């Protein structure tokens, strides 16, 4: 510690330490919850609970396949080929990100089930299905959940792959072309291998979202680990058991994060530092062009356009029947303010941690721990944070300040920042990794101190990566539920809490206006995201 302080600026180290404490605190809260007396032993699961574990893994596997295969192949097509509609599809493929998973589930079922417009159209065209029953398979099933979550989470893989293909573009792909690689061969021998880190990094984010989801999978009738955890907590009054199972889940995720640490520290991004122009796009013609257009259009249609249209028509119908309440505008303002402040906090914190890591070599595991915040079932994370926040409150009270942390915006911001910090540190690390370390050495020779180095060299280098991170965090915050819901101050509503409160009463269409605004705001942010890539 003293060496750390002597060698590197006190301020930087202190900032790192304070942040470290704040990052680690939820983990301690979870450990405290796990240590309470409780009945459930996470290693002795019943057959039904084991079934939930099995279905969770099936869901994750399915989502990994859908997002992985669709994400990388669409990114490849729009990067190296030219076909009708390519420009629009290239942008459109980020849009499914705008749909919160629970909303996607409600809308998809409403759209495609027996009474939905799609089957209604099928009946109108072909009459009732021979033998009766619905024309389409039930989306309330495991395959349905895989399809819905897979489509909505697809951009997590598409975006990094797209960035990678366009950056590494010319050098590798053109070289391979000169050597005679074409079409599928080029994709499998060149595209896929170079995309591996991007697929892994994006896939992990997609899987964490799927693992964390409770609302969508429950509605779709998939047994999930999250539901087992909630059952222990709510029905059996066994918070400790719930926390233990959640702890086990976090360990699992930690193992997942260890799969390929290089994938997230930007091993391959380092060679991608030269911003060459994109690879030459080989035009496709005839059937191949049509197939490419359809293949890329399908995720955009099913993952965004159709559900958004349907939601829009529901919102219109609802607007016709009832007036918009005055609180809608307040909720919109709160949503934007919350999204902006959380993304600012997260990228600033992420940057400080990344820089402190680089200059001091300390805090090396902090990034991973921050990632775990993203991985913990969100409700459990919030419950784990409550005692920590309570402790802070105790300290505040002892100082004699008439101030309550929990139930204030500050506590909510802290919880949200802790949840999404992983995105900030990852993006900051990726950006910083592109800056060769000898730049630091040169700067030091020129007499730059730690703070000057951080401000004048690292900050500008990180900035572009942080914009991407900020947009991702913004979208996540706009869609976020458990932390906002459980920790918000009295009378504070966001679009998401309003939409959710209707949906929780089984009346999702009553929140259609709020839902549509969530999708619209997130979609705009997603479009900015695609402009950056």
């Amino acid at each position, binding site marked *: 510690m003293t060496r750390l302080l002597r060698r590197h600026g006190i301020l930087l180290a202190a900032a790192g330490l304070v942040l470290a404490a704040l990052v680690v605190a939820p983990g301690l809260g979870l450990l405290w919850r796990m240590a309470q007396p409780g009945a459930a032993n996470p290693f002795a699961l019943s057959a039904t609970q084991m079934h939930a574990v099995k279905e969770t893994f099936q869901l994750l596997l399915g989502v990994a396949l859908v997002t992985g295969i669709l994400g990388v192949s669409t990114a490849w097509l729009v990067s190296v080929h030219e076909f009708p509609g390519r420009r629009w599809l290239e942008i459109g493929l980020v849009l499914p990100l705008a749909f919160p998973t629970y909303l996607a589930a409600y809308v998809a079922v409403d759209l495609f089930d027996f*009474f939905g417009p799609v089957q209604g159209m099928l009946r109108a065209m072909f009459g009732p299905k021979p033998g009766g029953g619905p024309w389409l398979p039930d989306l*309330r099933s495991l395959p349905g959940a895989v399809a819905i979550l897979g489509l909505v989470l697809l951009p997590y893989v598409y975006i990094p792959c797209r960035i990678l293909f366009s950056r590494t573009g010319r050098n590798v792909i053109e070289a391979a072309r000169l050597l005679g690689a074409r079409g599928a061969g080029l994709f499998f021998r060149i595209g896929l291998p170079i995309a591996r880190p991007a697929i892994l990094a994006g896939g992990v984010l997609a899987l964490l979202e799927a693992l964390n989801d409770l609302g969508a999978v429950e509605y779709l009738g998939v047994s999930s680990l999250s539901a087992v955890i909630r*059952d222990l907590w709510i029905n*059996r009054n066994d918070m400790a058991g719930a926390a233990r199972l959640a702890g086990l889940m976090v360990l699992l995720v930690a193992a997942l994060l260890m799969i390929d640490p290089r994938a997230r520290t930007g091993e391959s991004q380092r060679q991608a530092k030269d911003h060459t122009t994109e690879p030459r796009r080989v035009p496709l013609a005839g059937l191949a062009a049509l197939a490419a257009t359809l293949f890329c259009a399908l995720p955009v249609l099913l993952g965004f356009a159709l559900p958004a249209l349907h939601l829009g028509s529901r919102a219109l119908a609802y607007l016709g029947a009832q007036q918009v309440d005055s609180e809608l505008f307040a909720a919109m303002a709160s949503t934007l303010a919350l999204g902006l402040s959380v993304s600012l906090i997260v990228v600033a914190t992420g940057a400080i941690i990344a820089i402190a890591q680089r200059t001091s070599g300390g805090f090396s595991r902090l990034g991973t721990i921050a990632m775990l915040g993203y991985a913990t079932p969100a*409700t459990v994370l919030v419950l784990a944070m409550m005692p920590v926040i309570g402790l802070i*409150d105790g300290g505040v009270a002892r100082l004699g300040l008439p101030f309550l942390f929990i139930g204030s915006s500050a506590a909510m911001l802290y919880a949200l920042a802790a949840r999404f910090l992983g995105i900030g540190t990852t993006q900051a690390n990726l950006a910083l990794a592109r800056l060769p370390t000898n730049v630091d050495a040169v700067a030091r020779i020129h007499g730059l101190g730690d703070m000057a180095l951080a401000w004048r060299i690292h900050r500008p280098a990180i900035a572009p990566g942080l914009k991407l991170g900020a947009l991702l965090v913004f979208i996540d915050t706009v869609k976020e539920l458990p932390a906002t819901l*459980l920790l918000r101050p*009295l009378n504070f509503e966001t679009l998401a809490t309003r939409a959710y*409160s209707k949906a929780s009463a089984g009346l999702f269409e009553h929140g259609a206006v709020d839902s549509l605004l969530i999708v619209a705001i997130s979609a705009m942010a997603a479009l900015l995201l695609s402009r950056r890539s």
Partner: protein
Amino acid sequence: MIRLTRRPILPALLALAFAAPAFAQGEVNLYTHREPGLIKPLLDRFTAETGVKVNVVFAANGLAERMQSEGERSPADLLLSVDVATLNQAIALGVTQPVASPALENVVPPHLRGTDNGWWAVSLRARAYYVSRDRVKDATLTYEDLASPRFRGRVCSRDGLHPYNTSLISAVIAHNGEAGAEEWLKGVRANLAKKPSGGDRDVAKDIAAGLCDIGPANTYYMGLMAKDPAQKAWAEAVRVILPTFRDGGGTHVNISGVVFAKHAKNKANAQRLVEWLLSPAAQAIYAEQNHEYPVLAGIEPNDFLKSLGTLKADRTPLETIGKNRKAASELVDKVGFNLGPQS
């Protein structure tokens, strides 16, 4: 009905006009597990009549835990929940206080409030069976009938672990014992047409789509569906039966109810709000807008609820229902209910 809701307004407005300078102050902080939109008309009316502002925070779960972390500095005055077990859990966490109120004791019958007045019911929600109008001809059914072999492959349900279902299973345990309830739940599982999913309204939707013929659901969703043009078709395909228990027990009802926060700063206003929620005017709004049964004797349910027939509510103490929830959850687990008809 409308007369009932309107009558108290005039005197209330008069009272407000005269008393406003003295009473137009103060607030009460409400933590609610109940969807705020459903209670907002009530709260707005309360504020208009009394001048007491109601501050609200809603979450599906976890508000008692929040009160626990907030400790004695908690701003919460009241916790409103849709399920008696949740209220009991809050009491077990030590974040509540009993309140002695002769006004409340006079109107709330003993089986609709907690031991030592730990909690108070403010409205009742009946767990019914939705059945196909075309394919189920029974005029009455018992809860036990759902396990009967004649419904093989014809039952739809939401997640067995949802509080509405665990609450019903708790009642079945109270009437048939754990072993009997296990047999019953096994039978119901064997009768499932598909894996449990969706919500209560999806039971009606699935029946209308011909996927199944019967399933458990709360009555008030039917009232809501009938009002929505897009959902009218589902509601029209379905009838509501208020089942009873074979041993003579009535229809299972759960409550929406309140507990007073241990560290309530606005206890007087909180008490005033609860007393107001149990006033004839407020109880009539509950019935009229939310299609819930009133707690107060003498208030008639609305026309929709009346059309379902007279509710003969089960007399099993709600405390017992709350206590059985753990066993109910374990039964769902043991029987593998959520795995669907075949595993």
